């Protein structure tokens, strides 16, 4: 039965992905399309965050670091060489390598401690990366960043090529990460989230698992950074900012911690809410202060959807099932009593 359910959800995801893939050919509001593309990019990023937070129970306050590593690796490689696909791939490999190494080190240093140490260490590291990007001005142009050339096929950032690339990367990583979370290793991660000490005493070394989670998460995040810089054709130190981490965090929480689709939906909600609320500025003066409304959305989300959108839906679904079951049992009891 579970197998069947799994197949069905996969089917639904594939259909949604296909619908999104034809979107740019039937709908030509470029601003919406580029917004959707941002949702893909931040969906990947938030998903990587959820792998840490939702599945392994690790909080990071410096996840932007990996995003920034991805962005700067590609930007610098493309800027220092020719803007060809080859160098793009090379930059991406560099991003993955650097993100992998940094997440490995951060993980090894702090993951044996309580989880907020990882949070704070990554915060510190992200800060140091930001300063480094600022200081290495010959490479990075300092905090004002630089405009970069991208391979020809991606020059039209609002065209379908980049859009489809982002979508494909999202879909691929979604299924990879999902498979990962449902693998035996994924199950151990969830167990670690629940009770670390107990995981050790049933024979798993938690350090390996936490470092694996940290690395995979960091690498996936760096891929999001790569796409981001492609979509922006510009990079500056703001990619390392705490705001970026907080965005991922908010997307994850709003969508539903520990659900994988949740963060992607969260990314969609935040990007679109942001867009629409800020666009309303002329309808009424209050919308000029749309940030207030945005903040209120967060507050209401916690109060009414404490487990995020997807988490809350799941909960409702489970409750329904339970009620039904109860109902069945009750009628069964009655029947028995009657006989």
């Amino acid at each position, binding site marked *: 039965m579970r197998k069947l359910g799994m197949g069905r959800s996969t089917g639904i995801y594939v259909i949604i992905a296909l619908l999104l893939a034809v979107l740019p050919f039937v709908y030509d509001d470029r601003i919406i399309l580029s917004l959707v593309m941002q949702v893909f990019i931040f969906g990947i990023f938030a998903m990587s965050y959820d792998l840490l937070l939702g599945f392994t129970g690790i909080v990071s306050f410096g996840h932007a670091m990996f995003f920034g590593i991805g962005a700067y690796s590609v930007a610098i490689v493309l800027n220092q060489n020719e803007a060809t696909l080859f160098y793009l791939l090379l930059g991406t490999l560099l991003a993955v390598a650097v993100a992998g190494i940094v997440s490995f080190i951060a993980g090894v240093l702090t993951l044996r401690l309580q989880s907020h140490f990882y949070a704070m260490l990554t915060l510190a590291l992200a800060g140091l990366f930001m300063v480094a990007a600022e200081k290495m001005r010959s490479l990075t142009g300092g905090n004002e960043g630089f405009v970069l050339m991208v391979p020809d096929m991606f020059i039209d950032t609002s065209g379908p090529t980049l859009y489809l690339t982002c979508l494909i990367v999202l879909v691929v990583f979604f299924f990879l990460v999902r498979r990962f979370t449902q693998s035996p290793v994924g199950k151990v991660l969830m167990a670690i989230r629940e009770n670390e000490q107990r995981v050790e005493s049933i024979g798993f070394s938690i350090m390996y698992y936490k470092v694996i989670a940290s690395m995979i998460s960091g690498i996936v995040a760096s891929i999001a950074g790569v796409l981001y810089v492609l979509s922006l054709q510009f990079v500056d130190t703001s990619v390392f900012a705490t705001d970026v981490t907080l965005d991922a965090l908010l997307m994850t929480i709003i969508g539903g911690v520990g659900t994988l689709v949740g963060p992607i939906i969260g990314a969609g909600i935040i990007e679109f809410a942001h867009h629409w609320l800020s666009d309303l500025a002329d309808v009424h003066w209050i919308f000029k202060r749309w940030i207030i409304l945005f903040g209120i959305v967060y507050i209401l989300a916690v109060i009414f959807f404490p487990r995020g959108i997807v988490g809350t839906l799941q909960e409702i679904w489970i*409750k329904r099932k*339970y*009620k039904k079951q*109860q109902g069945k049992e009750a009628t069964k009891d009655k029947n028995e009593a009657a006989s």
Partner: protein
Amino acid sequence: MKALLELHDVQTYIDQYHILHDISFEVPKGEVTVLLGRNGAGKTTTLRTIMGLNPAAKGSVQYNSEDITKLSPYKIAKKGIGYVPEDQGIFEGLTVGENMRVAMKKENESTHERMEWVLDLFPDLKTFWKKPGGQLSGGQKQMLAIARAYMNENELLLIDEPSKGLAPIVVEKVMESIQQMKERTTIVLVEQNFLMASRIGDQFYILDDGQTVHQGAMEELQENETLRKKYLGIA
């Protein structure tokens, strides 16, 4: 005699789960009432409902003829009800001494006397006075939980499985202490140690699947083997 505590048709939900279906019983003043029943029968939930920690959705809890069903836990506690929870409720980061201090509503002569009495009862607590509660052994935690509840002048004590994890000699001490407390305090006891329950209980209720299914005087249960077999699975 007027009952100190009465539960009428109490029903309790935890989240969406219907845990207590129909609990009714009376606790006469000055006696020890024992709740018995298998794992998951709802004993702990019943005590929590009385304390207001899982308030009843239907039915009522009367204390001193006053309806306390919907009161918040601290108000209920203030009315003179003490509680020893099943999981001991130790403040793990606070030392033994601090655990005791938090529990004391006020400090005066009588609490000092009580303190001495309690520390005589459980000398271990004195030894480990400055140790964080989280580092105590299982049995020591249990002692601390009981000791805390003894610190105040309570009219009613709800005690959930006090003998759990205690060495036989300490179990005996706890029994004695409950017997001493009985002179001043009414007690509701959840206890799996039948020997202990039968020695200090005056009357019993048996819970099953969230319902009170049987009640009687303690002697009745001691004498009636079929009853014991039926509800408790022991001879």
